[in-house]
Every structure is written in structure tokens, then in C-alpha cells.
């Protein structure tokens, strides 16, 4: 398969403007500037079938189309580079190795909605990636791809890099906007959606790093080429970050619809040390786990993962072998969400901590027989009852671990100890 997103990452000095240009970089922007109207760019992206790669999978061109053309307010594009979903490290790779693809994609997005200021909101912890990206932005300004009258078109665009300061919730688009506005990263009620009421109350498009990085190839090669890849509803390619008990962890670019079992066993080398697969989380820690016996026919696209009872999410694949204690794994994830809940909505603020405490006591031999149903009850009361999808993200994995490994949880409670590892 021809690589689209990872086409440059292995090239020497791939993060520099010279290397990017020598490999066809900024050709798409020149095409846009020379011969494409903003409306034409949006049509092209719609035709490509590209869907948001941050987790929700919303069609990108349609999202841009919601931005009002006649608004007197300034419009903004925000690149979501706040990659924080456990198990996900694909955006970090793109930022460090191919920053110009992200910048070029950001310019194309901004041009198409008529925005003159774009922000890239990057995780605060990613200090090195921030330096690489800032250097690339500076190079773009010097080359005339950013600033006044880009490529002589009369179109102006400034790109501002903004560092977060350690808060998972700022990866949620409205939480990100609150943070960018100078506040706590508290998500906002939708509707109104950012397309009409976003940053500082102005029309805003928020796109993930991977989404924007796909744009130069789509414009350069044409939407039809992109749409020829993948399945009927999941077009193109997707990055998957693979971690845990796997022989070859790393970032993989996969054509949508690729067989999941084959991916794990052949592409990633399977589970090491002669052990067997116990479970795998396919889309980052907020997605329901799949048991080893459930992955047989699953394909790697939005619809197939959904049909299997989970979601593609961010494509963060976390592999767990037979030595993994699923109670401890569930507790680890519950602890993450308890730590990261922003505290705005009661069901999530309280429920995440309750679930964490109950998982902890089951793991540590203090569980009671009613505990599992209690967690399912709490999880069910969080689902759908919060402002942002964080609540669902905390509730779904908790319920899935119990439903899929119930016998293991019950054994912990019956024997009053961790039945998997002696250390507990």
C-alpha cells in the first residue's frame, strides 16, 4: 500500500522545509492558490470521504461546510494537537517528523473557510515536538507560505502555536477552546457547535493533526484517489498506535477495512514470549475492550469496530496477553479518568472516583458481591448525562471490562485476592 500519512517520516531530515519540498511538499497549496476557490476545496475534501481522525469520525468537508460564509466575525481554524488518549502516539510522530504536512493542511483548511488566524494547540508535555513545530512554522513564514498574501494570492494567514499545560480534557474540542480562551479547560454545551460559536464566540473549525496532515495528499493526488482506498463509508487510510504486549509496537498506517487479526498477528508480529492474546482495546483507553475470541472477523474501519461493540476512536491499540489482570487493567483506566475528569458535571466528577475506588477494592481483595453491578449502575448513570463525551469515555470501558471478564472479577471477590498475579 502506498503510504499517505507516513510518506515522509522515514526520510532524512524529514522535519525540514527543504526535505518536505523535495518530496512534493506545498505542491497542494500551490494548486489551491493557483486554481481552486475555497468552495472547490471544500467540495474536494467532501468527495474524498475524509472523516475526522481525532476519534469521532465526523466528515471533515461537511464540518467545514457548517461555517457561515457571511458571518461578520473573524473565523478560526484550530489544529488539535493535544494528543492525550492513552495508547495513542501517532500525532506526536507526525509533529516531530512531518510538521510541514500539518502546517500545509492547516493553511488549506483555513483558506477553505476564509480564516486568517489559525491556532495549533499542542500538549504542554510535548516540549521537543513544540520546538520542531515552531521551527517549521518559522520556515513557512520565511518561504511565504504563511503571513501576508500567501504565494501572491492576496490571502493572509497567521499560525500561532499554543502549548497546553497538562489536562486530558483539552483534547475535547470545546474544552480546548475554553483553554485557548484563557480559562480552565471546561467543555461547553453543544449546540451551538464551534462551526458557528467557537473560539471567542466566533465560527471555528477544530481538526485533529492526522486529519489536517491528510489534506495535502488529497488535494495533490485528487479526492478520487483517496476515496478509492478503504471501505464504502470509511475512506482512505488511518494511523494506528500499537502498544502493550506486542512484538513490534509503533505507529502503523493501515488502509481502512484491513483485517484486525491479520494486522495484530502479521504486521505487528503478534503477542511475544509464546503467550496468548487475552484482550485488546482498539481505539484508545476510552473504548470498550475486545476479548481475543471477538476479533476474528473484525476489520479496521469505523463501521466494523462499531459492529463488534467497540469503536475505532483514536486508533490506539492496547494489546494485553494472558498474564494481564483485567481487574487491574480496568482499575488503571478508571484511575486515569478519575484523575482527568474536569469536575464540571456531577455524574462524571463523582462517578469516575467511585468506579476507581470500587475497582481498587476488588483488585485488592476487599470487593463485595454487589460491587460489579454497582459499577455497571454508576457507569450507566454517567453515560449520556454529561456535557462532553468524557463521561461516556470513562463509562464505556468500565462496563466492558466487567461484562467481558465477569468470571475473573467474581473470582477476585470470592477469593478475596488478585487471582492473576501474586503481587496483586
Amino acid at each position, binding site marked *: 500500500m502506498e503510504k499517505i500519512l507516513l510518506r515522509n517520516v522515514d526520510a532524512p531530515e524529514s522535519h525540514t522545509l527543504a526535505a518536505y519540498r523535495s518530496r512534493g511538499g506545498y505542491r497542494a497549496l500551490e494548486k489551491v492558490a493557483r486554481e481552486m476557490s475555497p468552495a472547490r476545496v471544500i467540495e474536494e475534501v467532501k468527495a474524498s470521504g475524509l472523516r475526522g481522525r481525532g476519534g469521532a469520525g465526523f466528515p471533515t468537508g461537511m464540518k467545514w461546510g457548517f461555517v457561515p460564509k457571511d458571518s461578520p466575525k473573524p473565523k478560526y481554524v484550530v489544529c488539535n494537537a493535544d494528543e492525550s488518549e492513552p495508547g495513542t*502516539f501517532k500525532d506526536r510522530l507526525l509533529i516531530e517528523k512531518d510538521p510541514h504536512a500539518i502546517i500545509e493542511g492547516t493553511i488549506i483548511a483555513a483558506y477553505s473557510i476564509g480564516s486568517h488566524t489559525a491556532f495549533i494547540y499542542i500538549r504542554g508535555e510535548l516540549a521537543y515536538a513544540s520546538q520542531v513545530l515552531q521551527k517549521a512554522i518559522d520556515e513557512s513564514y520565511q518561504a511565504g507560505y504563511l503571513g501576508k498574501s500567501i504565494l501572491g494570492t492576496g490571502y493572509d494567514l497567521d499560525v500561532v502555536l499554543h502549548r497546553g*499545560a497538562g489536562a486530558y480534557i483539552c483534547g475535547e474540542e470545546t474544552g480546548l477552546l475554553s483553554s485557548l480562551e484563557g480559562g480552565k479547560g471546561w467543555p461547553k454545551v453543544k449546540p451551538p457547535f464551534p462551526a458557528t460559536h467557537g473560539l471567542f464566540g466566533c465560527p471555528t473549525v477544530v481538526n485533529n493533526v492526522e486529519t489536517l496532515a491528510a489534506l495535502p495528499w488529497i488535494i495533490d493526488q485528487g479526492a478520487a484517489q483517496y476515496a478509492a482506498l478503504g471501505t464504502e463509508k470509511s475512506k482512505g487510510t488511518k494511523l494506528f498506535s500499537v502498544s502493550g504486549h506486542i512484538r513490534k509496537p509503533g*505507529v502503523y498506517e493501515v488502509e481502512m477495512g484491513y483485517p484486525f487479526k491479520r494486522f495484530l498477528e502479521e504486521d505487528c508480529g503478534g503477542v511475544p514470549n509464546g503467550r496468548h492474546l487475552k484482550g485488546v482495546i482498539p481505539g484508545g483507553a476510552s473504548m470498550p475492550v475486545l476479548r481475543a475470541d471477538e476479533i476474528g472477523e473484525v476489520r479496521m474501519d469505523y463501521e466494523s469496530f462499531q459492529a463488534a461493540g467497540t469503536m475505532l476512536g483514536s486508533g490506539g491499540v492496547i494489546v494485553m496477553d494472558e498474564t494481564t489482570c483485567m481487574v487491574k487493567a480496568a482499575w488503571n483506566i478508571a484511575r486515569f479518568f478519575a484523575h482527568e475528569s474536569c469536575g464540571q458535571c456531577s455524574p462524571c466528577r463523582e462517578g469516575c472516583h467511585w468506579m476507581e475506588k470500587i475497582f481498587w477494592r476488588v483488585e485488592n481483595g476487599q470487593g463485595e458481591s454487589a460491587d460489579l453491578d454497582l459499577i455497571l449502575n454508576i457507569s450507566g448513570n454517567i453515560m449520556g448525562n454529561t456535557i462532553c463525551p468524557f463521561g461516556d469515555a470513562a463509562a464505556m470501558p468500565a462496563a466492558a471490562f466487567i461484562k467481558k471478564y465477569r468470571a475473573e472479577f467474581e473470582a477476585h471477590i470470592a477469593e478475596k485476592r488478585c487471582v492473576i498475579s501474586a503481587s496483586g
Partner: protein
Amino acid sequence: MLPVLYLAQAEFGYLGTDAIEYVAKIMGVSTARVYGVVTFYTMLNMKPIGRHHIQVCRTLPCALAGAEKITALIKAKLGIDAGETTSDGKFSLLEVECLASCGTGPMMQVNEDYHENLTEERVTEILQSLK
């Protein structure tokens, strides 16, 4: 707000009450507003931290790769628990959530530098190299 708080933290070392009041004044907002922001983000410190701020990832992918052993080793070597600073002010240790380094775990961040694919030997070397 965050860029100003980063500057203040770099200048004062941490964001105590004085720094928060100062930022509120120059930003023209209430102290409570700044306090709310500072307490919301993990990278903004209200207390002084050690010269070498060690943050070990504890989230599932790193945990599967053996992060607990790494944390236990650092605790033993430095004689402090997570969330504490050594009495000489040299090291602070914190267990943190996912740092987007899941394929190269276990990992830790020392100040702004990532150290990945950690082994107990490697951690010992890194700790010795920190002055």
C-alpha cells in the same frame, strides 16, 4: 493566559500566591480566576519543585510494560514517595498519566526530556547523570 503563566513560572520557579496575584494584576482579571486556571493544569506548580522533575507514566500501556518496577526503583533510590521532593531540593518525583509514548514504555520525563524504553539499569544511569 497559559503563555503568561508559563512565563511567570519560569521567572518565579513556581506559581505561589504572589505570582498568581501578579499575573491577575497584569492580565486585568481576578485572582480567583487565575487561581482556578493554575489549579486546573498539572504542569502549573503551586509549590516549589526539585531541580530535576521526574515524571513517570503510570497509565495502562506503560503499566503493561513494567512502569511499577521503574517507579519503585526511583522511590527507593531517592528515598521519597511520589508527590515528594528530596530534602536537598534536587529531585521531585511524580506519577503522571499518559505522555503519548505508549509504544516505547516504560517511560519517564525529566524536566522537558523524554526517556523511553526504560530498564532498571537505564534508570540507574540516568539518575546518576543528573547533577
